């Protein structure tokens, strides 16, 4: 030891003595992880063993053989053809389609309502701001299931019977059996109207792209909104009139004890859609409010200073920046809505959970396969929605230098 003090030779410093193996972080981490893996394997093995024993005792088959067997039950509302001779596999798809239908429509309605209420909360009109606040505070502090029960059992199931139906404008009527709407019946030549509609949309997109390029190059603006509206609505409208209105409506009519014809919307579906949209809208409203309030004051002032009108300030300055704050939490609300649609099971709407995790599981008893598939479906929906929203988020994100 004294030698090292006396000779300050520039040689390499001796590495510190290796600590005891037990005190080395890498070794400890390896041990912890190996222990965790062993514990997990033992746990899973024990569960798998118990499941196998229990299933054998209850004489329940395993595997996915049930997929092609006849289900033998009916589903009250389906998007694909389904009857009691269809297979369990088909029941799976029928339920999934129903879930996607209610979740998709729910997302659209909740977004519209949520944005309206969120903007209303920031309104300079005191009364409107308070009304929007009351809406948010009441709806988001009540359990969704309670709201669904309220809509279904207390409102829709208390409507008058078919004979005393409430008539709505446009030939629709509402009664305890559901909402009856006139069904559009396309006649020959209606395809041309649809084609005109499609052409209108495509040309609008092309014009928008061209106009943006021109504006970047020359600074001239082109009235994209008005031309798009004209192309999308007036063009098919004109074709529709030229071809002699090739679209009839089949009106629902009271025959016997119920309405026949037209489009029928079941009360279960209505209750679920209304409940999900109004509940989720209260959360979206808060997100929108926070997003708009999160845009710095200076942005609005700067926009006013360069002479933008209020509408343009909103559209070109505030909303694009607010969207960056809004999109991530909005994604999780969409996912919540999709997951919450599983509450359909409580009011009897045949969604995926109700049909597959409920009825199919009860009939086949194959809990493991059914629950695994259920989780897989919801994980897929979650991942797909997140992926889309992440793409959208990246698309609108601030491009930093």
């Amino acid at each position: 030891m004294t030698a090292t003090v006396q000779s300050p030779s520039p040689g390499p410093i001796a590495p510190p003595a290796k600590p005891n193996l037990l005190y080395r972080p890498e070794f400890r981490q390896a041990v912890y992880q190996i222990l965790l893996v062993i514990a997990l394997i033992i746990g899973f093995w024990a569960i798998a063993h118990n499941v196998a024993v229990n299933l054998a005792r209850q004489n329940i088959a395993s595997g996915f053989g049930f997929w092609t067997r006849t289900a033998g039950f009916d589903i009250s509302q389906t998007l694909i053809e389904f009857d009691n001779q269809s297979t369990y596999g088909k029941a799976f798809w029928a339920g999934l389609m129903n879930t996607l239908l209610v979740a998709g429509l729910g997302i659209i309605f909740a977004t519209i309502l949520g944005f309206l209420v969120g903007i209303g909360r920031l309104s300079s009109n005191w009364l409107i701001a308070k009304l929007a606040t009351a809406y948010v505070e009441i709806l988001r502090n009540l359990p969704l299931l309670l709201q669904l029960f309220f809509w279904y059992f207390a409102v829709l199931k208390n409507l008058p019977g078919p004979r005393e139906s409430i008539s709505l404008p446009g030939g629709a009527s509402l009664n305890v059996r559901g909402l009856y709407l006139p069904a559009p019946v396309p006649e020959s030549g209606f395809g041309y109207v649809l084609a005109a509609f499609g052409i209108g949309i495509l040309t609008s997109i092309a014009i928008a792209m061209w106009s943006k390029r021109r504006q970047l190059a020359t600074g001239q603006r082109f009235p994209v909104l008005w031309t798009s509206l004209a192309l999308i609505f007036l063009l098919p409208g004109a074709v529709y009139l030229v071809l002699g209105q090739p679209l009839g409506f089949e009106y629902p009519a009271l025959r016997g004890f119920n309405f026949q014809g037209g489009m029928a919307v079941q009360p279960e579906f209505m209750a679920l859609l209304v409940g999900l949209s109004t509940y989720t809208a209260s959360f979206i409203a808060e997100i929108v409010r926070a997003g708009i309030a999160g845009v710095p004051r200076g942005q609005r002032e700067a926009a006013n200073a360069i002479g933008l009108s209020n509408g343009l300030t909103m559209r070109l300055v505030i909303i694009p920046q607010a969207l960056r704050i809004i999109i991530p939490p909005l994604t999780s609300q969409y996912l919540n809505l999709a997951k919450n649609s599983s509450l359909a099971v409580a009011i009897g709407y045949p969604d995926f959970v109700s049909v597959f995790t409920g009825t199919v599981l009860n009939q086949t008893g194959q809990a493991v396969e059914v629950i695994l598939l259920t989780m897989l479906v919801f994980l897929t929906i979650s991942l797909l929605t997140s992926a889309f929203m992440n793409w959208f988020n990246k698309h609108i994100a601030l491009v930093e230098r």
Partner: protein
Amino acid sequence: MTSTTATSTMRPPRSEVGLIGWLRKNLFSSVTNTLLTIIGLWIIWKVITAAIGWAILSATFEGSDGAACSREHAGACWPFIQAKFSQFMYGRYPEPQRWRVDLTYVLAIAGLVPLMTPSVPGKLFNTLYMIVFFPIAAFFLLVGGYFGLPYVPTELWGGLLVTLVVASVGIAGAFPIGILLALGRRSKMPIVRWVSVGFIELVRGVPLITVLFMASVMLPLFLPEGVTIDKLLRALIMVALFSAAYLAEVIRGGLQAIPRGQFEAADALGLSYPQKMGLIVLPQALKLVIPGIVNTFIGLFKDTSLVLIIGIFDLLGIVQLNQTDAKWFSPSTGMTGYVFAGFVFWIFCFSMSRYSLFIERRLARGDRR
């Protein structure tokens, strides 16, 4: 040029101050605004008259069965709530034993109120009371079977009691698991991290209903032959695991907000990992995310109503069950029950969200130096 006499100050125009000024500025500043105000007033008028008409003017206050509420255009059926009130609160908990539930509530309030009031001293003792003494006392009081208290099986529990038990046991059980998961997600050990991330994302990706279905159909399959778990306990385990995943994400947010220097300072002091986390990082991180934790709890409190799908009757479940009581059948019974249950749920959730806001503001005040 100076003037020595004060010029008389002019009063602001009358239309700009006072009630009229306020009205002009906030309600009638433009044509659209005036139109919106009128629409708003119309909505408020409609809602208030409908609510008063239903709850008071055309409501039924006396009666002993549904027939009393079955007239044309009848409003609320309050005798239904009166008759079923104790069921809504305690379920089928035996009547002579209900003081035990009440005593549990008193013990809970005695611990919670000082804990939630920041100015009351003795938080350490108070926390110990809430996490050690209270759960044990509550267990023996509610379940019984010892100290001369008769045993009350959980099948008899119901109503608000079950709602509160599921929510509070769920969050209490979720807390330690959530902290472990959050720490695991930020761990340097890859396998620990993967397991935590896998669990959190799997659970957050599926709805609570499937988790509860799992509790009722799969959990029994997981156990060795002959072993059964109480239905309520099964739901409690699943609810705790479910909320642990959400809580883990909230706590992770708090962990991320702690400056690196805190971790490094703890390392420099030679603290071990548990000491570093338990003494330095977690106390700060958890304090930061109290609002998030309260919000998770509100979500859980609302979600407890889903247990009715697997046949456990919480407040909403017992209200729903009583709708089918033939004696009380009337067109307005359902609405009355839901309004009552909604009122109770709303009071709880709203006051909790106000509390979370209060803590949030208090924390923000601390940061604003």
